Structure formats: C-alpha cells, structure tokens
C-alpha cells in the first residue's frame, strides 16, 4: 500500500507554462538566460562532440587493430589522438557535467535560477565557440600539411613540440586558443555554481542539509578556480612564445619544457577530480533512491569530497616521474597520490553501505551506478599502482596508462553520466527513457568496455607505447589490439542505441510525471519539465530529504537531526 499525504507546505507542483511570446524558437534559445535551457544546451553540445570524438576513437582503433596497418596516414593519426583527447576532456566531459549542474543545482536547492544568469549564458557561449574554433582548424587551418590542419601535438601539447620550429602554421594556435576560451567559460560557470550554492538556497536548507550533488559541484567548482588559472596562464604564455617571440617554453633560448609540464599537470590531474566529483555526485543521488535508503554517512561524504579537493591539488607531478625530479619530489608525489585514495575509499565504502541492506531496484540508472562502482574501484587500484614511482618508470607513456585513465573516464565518468541521463531525463523532458533499450545499452556497453579497456592493459605491460601509429607483427600485441578494436565497435553500437533512445523517448516515451522514481530531493517536487520559474512558491527544506519528510510525516528525517 502506498503512503500519501497532502503537501501543505510551500513545496508544490505547478502546471506547465506556455512558451513566452517571442520571435521564434531559435531566438529564444540564443537569448535565454534560464539555467535549464542553458543546461540542456551544454548537454546537447557535449553530446554532439561526444559523437565526433567517438568516431575519432573508432578510427584510431581500426588503425591499430592489426599490425602494419595504413588505414589512415601517420599525420592523420596524430591529429586524431590530439583532437580525440582535447574534445573529450574540454568539449564533452566538462560541458556535459556543467550542463547537468546548471540544470539541477537551482532545482535541488529550491532556487529560481543561478546567481548570475547572464554570466551563465556568456560562459556557455564562450565554451561553445571554443569548440567550434577547435574544429574550424580542419577547414581553415593554414598549417604545414595543407589547407586543413587540425592540431597534432597531443592533448597535453608538451613543449618544445608546440614551438614554431616544430609546429609551424596555426594548427597549434587553434588548440591553444580553443582551450583558452573553454577555460574562461569553465571559470565563469564555476563562479556561478559556487555563488548559487552559497547564496541561493531556499529556506531551511542549511549547508548540512544541502544535497550531496550540490556539495560536490561546489567543491569541483572551487577546484576550477585554482587549477584552470594556471592552464589559462600557460596558454597565454604559449601564445606569447608563438606570436611575439618570447621564450617561456623555448628550450634553446633559456626556456623550460618542464615548466609547461608543471603548468599543464597542475591543471591536468585535478581536472580528473573536477570531472569525477560531479559523477560521484550523480551516484550519491541515484544509489540511495534505488536502494530505498538514505545515503550512508552524509557528513563523511562531504568531508571526503572536500578532502579529495584539497589533496588532489598536490598530486600533479605523478605524471612527471620520468622527468627526474629527484627523491624528495618523487617521494612527496608518491605519498600524496596514495593519500588521495583514502577519502575516495571512504566514499566507496559509504556507497556500499548505502546499498547494503537496502531494497535495491535494478532499473537502468542503478545498473550504470553499479557498473560505475565496480569499474571505478579497478581504475583506482591501477591508479595506486601507477602512483608508485618505480612502477611508473616502467609503464609511463605505455598503453597501460592509456587503459588506466580510460578506465577512470569511461568506466567511471561515462557510466555515471549514463546513469544520470536515465535518472534525470524524465525531469528534463517529461518522458521516461525506454527501459528495454536502456538495458541493451547497458549490457552492450559493459561488454564493449571490458573488451576494450581490460585487454588494453596487456599490450601496455608488454611494452606497447601510447600514440604509436602502427607496430610490427610478432611483438605479442596483435591479439590484444584486435580484441580492443572489437570492444570499441561494441561500445559504438551501444552508444548509438543510447542516442536512438534519447530521440525515440523524447517523442514516444511514457509520461513521467513529476516524481517517477519516488525520490527525495527538491527537483522532484515540481513538474517534469519544470516551469520557467521552477517553483511557484519558495520551498522549505526540513532535512536533507525534504520530499521524504513530506511523504512520510510520521517518520521524518528532521526528527533525527
């Protein structure tokens, strides 16, 4: 028997509003400052780039599937891995996560919009134009190789390869400027998220009651302030080197290539945590709802998130063990890297403790969440292995490293993102995603993922370096690369099913209603999709699970606070 009550408090469900009058739908989207529309634009834009970068990955795997292959040229291969990495990090992962943050944070804290709506729109458009600029290089780059010359210096663009001598033309400038634009947009959105979380919470929503998703986005955004600035500074310095003849990274004129490495990885490694914290946030929301239990250890989860934020700022040079930093530097970064696993482990235990004893419902969001838990654990373990300097000396720049970080990004971030899509799609569109297609997507993606990235570790252990265009037969790498290629195709098919499901469900999906998952946070207290103003009246939070309190007046969480 279901329990029910009447929402006498300020939380209410309002009827959908009609579209405001205006010149046209395109103009409305171009001029919108509504956090929900901006969030959706972020997500759609990231999905477009996901498909592009996914195709690039497939082309690379076809090239490497058999030895001595010449499916693409060496120059094209260099551009492919550069554009794939740059696109996935800067124009897929960051935008899609900020898209979800934009959409969800005001709803979850009972606000009408972000703190700075116009800055929000500006940040989105700046990031979007950055992506367009990057891909303009394919058509308008006047590089060494002809009319179209995409960047080919790798996604971390080490000096001195990026100097004018080794990278003539403008292809590297496209990379630098596009990433610079993206960084400025990212910082703008981070400012907005922090200000919104700190200043826009509804009545009763103290920091102790703030949804974990909002907490983790706040921590990630604070990290953006610290780590994107060095990257932007380095991009400007690189521009000065290339345009005005300065010598920051020019090793033949007293510059330092290692300086670039430090600048890049001061950004680059915390960036992994900037990406993974929001995906932790998704799991924090999804696992309790589908386990029918409150999150285990809310304060520990917050403390662990803040701890990850701090510690992850001091681990960057584990990417540089082979540079020769000396024993003191190596020891510090080995130790700092191992320490970051402690708060991460606390989170892992808390998720398991949330599931433990719960009434687990294996709908598609939960399936992807469980996949995330399993795969992120393995990704963390290989991360611990690589954090040991002697181990890293053997395997740095090998396919083992490639497998490790793809385990983090695909096995962790992508799985969590898919879970988030299935979980919040009903809120965003008012329609449920098709469950059967979702399960096909999940199982195919799991199989494809493990075929690809489990077996990718092995050629790395056998000595296969990353970024090689092709390889000789007889080194023992052939079988593994072929299996990896098969896995990539299976993942591609699964992703196509996902994209089809998104489109199909938008038109044919079942009506979702305001609260299809029987959830507990405020975004489920309004219609699906929410009206422009989110809530007709400001909600009041009585605990960390305000909807639970409303649904269960005889057993409110607020009784235990």
């Amino acid at each position: 028997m279901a329990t029910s009550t009447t929402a006498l408090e300020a939380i209410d469900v309002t009827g959908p509003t009609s579209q405001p009058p205006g010149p046209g739908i395109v103009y409305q989207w171009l001029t919108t400052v509504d956090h929900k529309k901006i969030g959706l634009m972020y997500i759609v834009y990231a999905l477009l780039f996901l498909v592009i970068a996914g195709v690039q990955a497939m082309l690379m795997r076809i090239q490497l599937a058999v030895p001595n292959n010449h499916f693409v040229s060496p120059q094209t291969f260099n551009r492919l891995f550069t554009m794939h990495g740059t696109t996935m990090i800067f124009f897929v992962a960051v935008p899609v996560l900020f898209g979800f943050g934009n959409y969800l944070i005001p709803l979850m804290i009972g606000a009408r919009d972000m703190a700075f709506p116009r800055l929000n729109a500006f940040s989105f458009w700046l990031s979007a134009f950055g992506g367009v600029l990057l891909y303009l290089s394919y058509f308008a780059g006047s590089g060494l190789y002809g009319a179209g010359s995409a960047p080919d210096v790798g996604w971390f663009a080490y000096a001195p390869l990026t100097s004018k001598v080794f990278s003539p033309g403008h292809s590297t400038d496209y990379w630098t400027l596009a990433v610079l634009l993206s960084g400025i947009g990212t910082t703008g959105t981070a400012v907005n998220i922090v200000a919104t979380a700190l200043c826009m919470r509804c009545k009763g929503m103290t920091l102790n009651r703030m949804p974990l998703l909002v907490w983790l986005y706040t921590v990630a955004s604070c990290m953006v302030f610290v780590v994107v600035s060095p990257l932007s500074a380095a991009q400007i310095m690189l521009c000065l080197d290339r345009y005005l003849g300065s010598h920051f990274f020019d090793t033949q004129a007293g510059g330092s290539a290692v300086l670039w490495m430090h600048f890049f990885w001061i950004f680059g490694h915390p960036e992994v945590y900037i990406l993974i914290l929001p995906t932790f946030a998704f799991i924090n929301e999804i696992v309790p709802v589908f386990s029918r239990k409150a999150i285990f250890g809310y304060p520990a989860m917050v403390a662990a998130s803040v701890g990850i934020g701090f510690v992850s700022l001091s681990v960057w040079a584990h990417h540089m063990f082979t540079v020769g930093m000396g024993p003191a530097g190596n020891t510090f970064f080995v130790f700092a890297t191992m320490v970051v696993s402690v708060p991460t482990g606390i989170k892992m235990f808390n998720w398991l403790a949330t599931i433990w004893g719960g009434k687990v419902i294996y709908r598609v969001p939960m399936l992807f969440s469980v996949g995330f838990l399993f795969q992120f654990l393995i990704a963390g373990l290989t991360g611990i292995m690589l954090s040991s300097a002697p181990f890293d000396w053997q395997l740095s720049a090998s396919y083992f490293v490639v497998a490790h970080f793809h385990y983090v990004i695909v096995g962790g971030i992508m799985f969590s993102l898919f879970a988030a899509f299935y979980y919040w799609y009903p809120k965003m569109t008012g329609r449920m995603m098709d469950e059967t297609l979702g399960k096909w997507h999940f199982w195919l993606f799991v199989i494809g993922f493990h075929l690809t990235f489990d077996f990718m570790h092995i050629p790395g252990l056998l000595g296969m370096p990353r970024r090689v265009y092709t390889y000789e037969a007889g080194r023992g790498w052939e079988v593994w690369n072929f299996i990896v290629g098969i896995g990539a195709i299976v993942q591609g098919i699964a992703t196509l099913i996902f994209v089809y499901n998104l489109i199909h469900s938008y038109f044919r999906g079942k009506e979702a209603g305001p609260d299809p998952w029987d959830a507990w946070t405020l975004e489920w207290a309004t219609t699906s999709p929410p009206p422009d103003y989110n809530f007709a009246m400001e909600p009041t939070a009585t605990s960390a699970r305000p909807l639970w309190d409303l649904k269960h007046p005889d057993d409110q969480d607020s009784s235990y606070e």
Partner: protein
Amino acid sequence: MAEHESESIQSSSVPHASAVHLPAPTVWPMVLALGIALICTGMVTHWVIALLGLLLIAPAVVGWFREVLPSENLVHVSVSTQIVPVSSSRAARARSPHGINHRKLLPIETFSVMAGIKGGIAGGTAMILPAALYGVIRYHSIWYAVNLLAAGGFVSWAGQSDAFLAQFHLQGLLAASAIHGTASVLIGLLYGAMLPMYPRKPIVTAGFIAPFLWTGLLYSALGVISPILDQRINWLWFVLSQIFFGLVAGYVVNLQVKVRTPQFQALPFVVRAGIHTSSADDEDPL
C-alpha cells in the same frame, strides 16, 4: 515504480494565480562571447575577423550593462499554483511488536572521529618501541627500522647494505617520521570513521581485526609500494608491531568520552534526561 508514482500525484485545485519576476532573455552575453571568439579566430585566420570581433564586443558590453543598470531588466511570468497530494510507493506496514530489549541497529552513542585520530597518534608512538627493539636485537641499532621505512622514498638506498641502514641518517629520520606520522594519523582517521560501525569492542577491532586486515593488505601490496621494504621486512615482528599499535590505539580510544548520535534525539525525554536508562547502555568495553 515510475508508472505507479506518476498516477498518484495529481493536481487538485488552483487556489490562486500570481506572477514571478525572472531575468529577461538577452542576446548580449552570446554576442560578447562571439566577439571574443572572433578575436581569437582572427589570430589564426585574418585580422579582419578580429576587427569584426572587436566591433561586436563594443555594443555587447553596452547592451549587457544596460540589462542590469540602472535597474535589472525582468520579465513577469504568470504562475498558477496547485497544491497537490505527494505520495510514495513505499509500502506502509504495521510494525511487528517487539520487546523493550529488542536489538537496536543504530547506536545512541559512539566514539568521535577525533577519538580515532588520538588513538592513531598514540598507537603510532607506541609502535616505535617494538620496531626499535627489533632493530636492536637483530642489527644492534635503533635506526635500522627507521631507515628501512625511509628507504621506500629514496631510490638510491635500494642497494644499500644492512650496515648502512643501521647507521643514523638525518634525512632518513625526517622521511620516516613524516611517513610514519602521517600514516598513523590516517589510520587513526580511518579507524575513527569505522568505529561507529563497530562501537562495542574497540580494543578487539583495533588490536586484532584492523592489524589483521592491514597486514594482509600490505603483504600483497608492499612489493609495489616499497620493494626494498618488501625484501627485508620481518613479517613476524611487523605483525607484532601492528598488534601493539592496535592495542594501544584501542585502549586510548576506549578512554575517550562517547558522543551522542542523532538517534539519541529520538529517545523519550525520560531517557535523554537520564531518569531512565536505555537498553543500549549495556555495552561491553571489549
């Protein structure tokens, strides 16, 4: 779950209608971003493109400024409020009768995280004794264990002799102190976080179960973390040191005053006031 829910939440009435003010849509943020992007594009294509960007930036800045000053440009959006029943698919079952001594799953008092950290510091300090004793008995030096621990961070020490490790080295002492101190605090922190799960027997948990798990973990991973330590470690003494660490840590934790959990608030007033006792009070310190 989804279908059930969507049917159960229904609108019932429209008590009143009002309006809210929202920021008006504006094209200027997009134009400003386009202007900046065109300046960047001009740097890689033609200066005319950059000039076009500059021309866009000027009106965009003015236009954005006028969006917020002298007063913010807002639009009025009408709102129709509907108070609705909120429901849950959670089954409401009659609670089975149980006696006063029925087991409580959630403790009303537990140790704080700080108790674990204090225990970690005390255990780490005490652990120095068996480690030093091992060095004295086996190598006639209290510095052997110190240098062996520090050697994990100094690659050049990997091939050094036992005699070298038995000598005093300042950098070895500093590195070992940092490693041991931080590890002790972190293990104490982890222990403090675990205590609420096992509040009844802190000494058993800290003295035997945690060392057992920790030693097992290190046994499998030490070859990766510190190959030199892995080659020379004496596992018997290591386990004894761990148990000594745990027993001292557990003893110190047991001396700490317990803190009340949120479940304490749910107890009847007479229990909270100390007039009656709770059935959960009969806890065994071991």
